[in-house]
């Protein structure tokens, strides 16, 4: 018990301090790299704004001939758009720049350097880079959500805010685990980047309410690739429409995915053969 306490309190605290410090260096170096290329930064910013305008425009086309899709009106569907924009921003800020690099690490054999550092390799691979322009997209997403509060006359409580944060964290965890799982297969197949692009296209589906899909698609996007979970449940929480079981299910699904992705990475590393010199 004493050893356990030492491990958790002493090393645990030291580890958190160390990881926070390393993470601050990761962020600092990423910002430095981004600032080296000023025009690129501007183009990325423009792309995020135009992307959001395009999505809202697409949504308005769908609603031009009908008031409701799958029981959701335009103002409510806009919440899903806001959640989607936040998650897309998270994807662009962390997942895209980092998990895309896994292919490079494995093809060029530079994963060797990561594995030989006294730091968790999954942490390094998932958080080494940060794309600051994605942060703007996250801000835009929150802006859309705030506008939706006004449109839908949502009364806010601490309880609903906490639930929104919990479900959003779960959504991000599911999304991250899916990306990480696909990226991990690179250890065997070397080039699986296309698979993450397929996942990205599925994520686009998350812009629409789960109820607007047919029954079979709903099953597919809730179980095999739980994309609809990711956007629909936080939106329902915001509207006060989500039953407790759905929230609990999302928490369970996200935890399962996270644990599985971590175990899968540890297992895959046993098959890492490194690149030849």
């Amino acid at each position, binding site marked *: 018990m004493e050893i356990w306490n030492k491990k958790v309190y002493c090393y645990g605290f030291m580890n958190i301090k160390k990881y926070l410090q390393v993470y601050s260096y990761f962020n600092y170096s990423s910002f430095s790299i981004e600032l080296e290329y000023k025009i690129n930064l501007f183009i990325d910013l423009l792309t995020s704004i135009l992307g959001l305008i395009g999505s809202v425009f697409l949504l308005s086309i769908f609603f031009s001939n009908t008031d409701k899709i799958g029981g959701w009106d335009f103002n409510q569907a806009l919440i899903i758009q806001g959640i989607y924009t936040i998650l897309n921003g998270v994807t662009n800020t962390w997942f895209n720049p980092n998990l895309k690099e896994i292919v490079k690490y494995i093809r060029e054999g530079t994963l060797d350097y990561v594995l030989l550092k006294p730091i968790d390799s999954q942490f390094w691979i998932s958080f080494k880079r940060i794309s600051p322009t994605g942060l703007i997209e996250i801000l835009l997403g929150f802006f859309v959500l705030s506008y939706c509060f006004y449109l839908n006359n949502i009364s806010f409580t601490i309880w609903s805010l906490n639930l929104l944060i919990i479900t959003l964290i779960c959504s991000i965890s599911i999304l991250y685990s899916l990306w990480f799982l696909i990226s991990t297969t690179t250890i065997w197949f070397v080039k699986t980047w296309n698979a993450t692009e397929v996942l990205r296209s599925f994520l686009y589906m998350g812009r629409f309410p789960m109820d607007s899909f047919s029954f079979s698609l709903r099953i597919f996007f809730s179980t095999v690739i739980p994309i609809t979970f990711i956007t629909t449940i936080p939106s329902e929480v915001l509207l006060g429409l989500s039953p407790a079981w759905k929230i609990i299910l999302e928490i369970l699904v996200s935890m399962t995915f996270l644990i599985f992705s971590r175990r899968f990475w540890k297992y895959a590393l046993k098959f890492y053969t490194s690149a030849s*010199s």
Partner: protein
Amino acid sequence: MVTNIIEVKDINKSFSISSKRPGIQGTIKHFFNRKTIEKKVVKNINFEIKKGEIVGFLGANGAGKTTILKILCGLLYPSNGYISVAGSLPFEREASFLKKITLIMGQKQQLIWDIPPIDSFYLNASIYGIEKKEAIRRIKELSEMLEIDSELYLPVRKLSLGQRMKAELLAALIHRPSILFLDEPTLGLDINAQANLRKFLKIYNKQTGATILLTSHYMKDITYLCKRVICIHEGYITYDGKLEKLLTKLSPNKDVSIICKSIKDIENLKKLNLEIKNINDNQITFTINKLDFKNTLKEILNKFDIEDLQITEPPIDEVIGKVLINKK
């Protein structure tokens, strides 16, 4: 008594490799029905390395040198056998073990390309739990040893290969590892940069007592740094011992060219019971065994009035080349 820091017993390593026939037909077949073969790249390897030793791994491309280094530093799981590096099983990659070792690869880099090396050093320092003050002190100390200063503040992409390699070394040594695995560290460097790097490694070994394992195709790296070499051919160890002994074994003779003042001396020299390689006017070349060399040369110098003398040995690359292509 100096203890063994590395112990390797009966290590084997196999890889599954898929082969493809040329042409479009081969490509399509390869896509649908990939045939893999099991290739044994490391076979029954045994050796021990003492603390503070510098050991060179010699072998042709694909002999298995890099694979052995990667097994030793814990990147690859051996198919079977026992390894102990600094008292740990390398493939468990425990933090305490990783803090004791470093891997430097001449053809791969860990520095972040778009920002100055100094930022990568601070990142590495934080990973190894080194306080900023201590990191600054170590960077200063190592940069003085490596003779780099202003280059630390330029983006890595703007540095020459030699400067980049020095910065790579600094990044890899900031945590003061006691075992260095170097895979062709001087690859692509110019002669001066190679010499500087060798000099640095020798000083580092002397000052810190670090153990160094090195692979290199540049014989000067090996002869300057390593007293002991391990030769590897097709996954097997073909020689493990002193470099000097290997050179004597592979090249037992020296050539001595003597220019005499008169043809008469040449005639008298011929009468000595020595192997004559060449005669040209008043110049005669003998091949003399290294073991008799001192006495034979003494005899010649005492008996004959010679004008000039030249001793030649076959180039070391040529000698070592023999060991790289012959199994025994």
